[in-house]
């Protein structure tokens, strides 16, 4: 059995699953950038108590699952979400939904994802795919970061759905209600507004100093200390880790900043505020700066430049990014929304 489902590639997995599932439910016009923006996807956080691959943990986006949830909620679309303790039940429940013609979003771990190249398979558990068919022992998969649809055997799918470690998926599935009502223009405009407001709050006002704009600044100061504290080699490895979180598969480049800039351009179609376009330019600038910082970092982890001054350049680049993003979010905050 195979559900009639349109696989469209996206930059980021959760955006892609969200837009593809919504389109299947008959809701067109929610592009990837719109889903990302309504879902208040842009973020920055350094997570001090977590180690990833023996290095520091950063994220350039919001918590896994939140983009889908916020986007659907703000469009008034009911969502079904379920976790399982038994793998067998998790698989048979999935089969049941497929036979009803429902494509299903699944949270999976990447480590055992057989169609990924080996070099990309880390223990990262917040990947999202859509399962939309089954033929014999094989499931038909729409992985939004892949150009074409792929397949996993029953055993492989079960294993990635029950990957272990931080953010373990526990077989989680989710899908928007098939009887969703089409959101009108006003609802979409409202969802855009609330996404921007929430994102502004997250980036400017989360206390604690490790998240949002202050998180970027915190990281900047930390980076300049890595050479003394860890040595050139380890410091370089940490920088490489930061670059991977920022640029690797699924960010759309520049740590999601370009997707957000695209979102603000599209938001302008619904809200005629020039601030949206100006903020979009600022996020383009921020994305470009993130990429310049990556180039500078690459010089360090390639061993080409190794001085403290070189680490300090990265620090200054990050501090500059923090200022650019602060100004952009302040601009968004100051918008006087017409209801």
């Amino acid at each position: 059995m195979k559900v009639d489902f349109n696989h469209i590639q996206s930059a980021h997995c959760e955006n892609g699953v969200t837009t593809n599932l919504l389109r299947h439910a008959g809701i067109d016009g929610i592009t990837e950038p719109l889903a990302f923006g309504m879902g208040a996807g842009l973020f920055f956080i350094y997570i001090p108590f977590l180690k990833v691959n023996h290095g520091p943990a950063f994220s350039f986006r919001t918590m896994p699952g939140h983009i889908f949830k916020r986007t659907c909620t703000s469009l008034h679309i009911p969502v079904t979400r379920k976790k399982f303790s038994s793998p067998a039940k998790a698989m048979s429940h999935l089969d049941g939904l497929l036979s009803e013609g429902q494509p299903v979003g699944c949270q999976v771990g990447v480590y055992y994802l057989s169609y990924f190249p080996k070099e990309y398979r880390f223990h990262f558990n917040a990947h999202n795919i859509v399962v939309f068919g089954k033929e014999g022992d094989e499931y038909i998969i729409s992985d939004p970061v892949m150009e074409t649809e792929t397949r996993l055997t029953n055993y492989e799918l079960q294993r990635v759905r029950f990957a272990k470690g931080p953010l373990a998926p526990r077989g989680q599935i989710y899908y928007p209600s098939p009887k969703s009502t089409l959101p009108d223009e006003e609802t979409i405009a409202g969802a855009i507004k609330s996404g921007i407001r929430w994102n502004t709050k997250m980036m400017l006002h989360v206390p604690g100093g490790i998240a949002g704009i202050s998180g970027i600044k915190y990281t900047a100061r930390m980076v300049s200390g890595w050479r003394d504290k860890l040595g050139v080699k380890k410091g370089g490895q940490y920088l490489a880790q930061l670059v991977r979180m920022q640029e690797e598969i699924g960010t759309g480049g520049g740590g999601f900043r370009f997707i957000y800039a695209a979102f603000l351009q599209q938001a302008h179609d619904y809200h005629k505020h020039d601030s949206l376009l100006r903020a979009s330019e600022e996020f383009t600038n921020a994305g470009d700066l993130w990429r310049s910082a990556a180039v500078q970092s690459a010089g360090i982890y390639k061993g080409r430049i190794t001085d403290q001054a070189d680490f300090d350049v990265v620090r200054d680049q990050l501090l500059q990014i923090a200022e650019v993003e602060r100004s952009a979010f302040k601009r968004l905050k100051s918008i006087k929304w017409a209801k």
Partner: protein
Amino acid sequence: MKKKDLPQDESKLDDVTRELCYAQDEEGNYTTDLSKGWEVKAKALDVAWKDIKERTDEARSKVERGEASPVLFFMESRLMDLPILAGYTGFWQWTIKRHLKPEIFKKLSQKKLQKYADAFDVSVEELKHMRIDES
């Protein structure tokens, strides 16, 4: 980023997929395009794998010198740390720490060895003798 500046460098994704990226066209409007890869991040991935290789090699020599049990070697080669291995085996982290000692590992029951073997995707024999199929 302008669309014309989108890097098309070699990467480990060659022949698997290309990545969708957001970039601006000549008028400054955002659009999407596919990228084969970017040298800067390909190198970052290399750095990560070089570190994994070094850690695995070091673990192997530790086991050979009798300073650690094969669990350490497989943990490193499977990119796991204590919390992840605890998740896959169901053992407590402190239990695993004990099992990292060769003398305690030698006394483990078949059942416990099997749990490690399953987590590492190897047979119990391969686990005990630190053999690994690199494919």
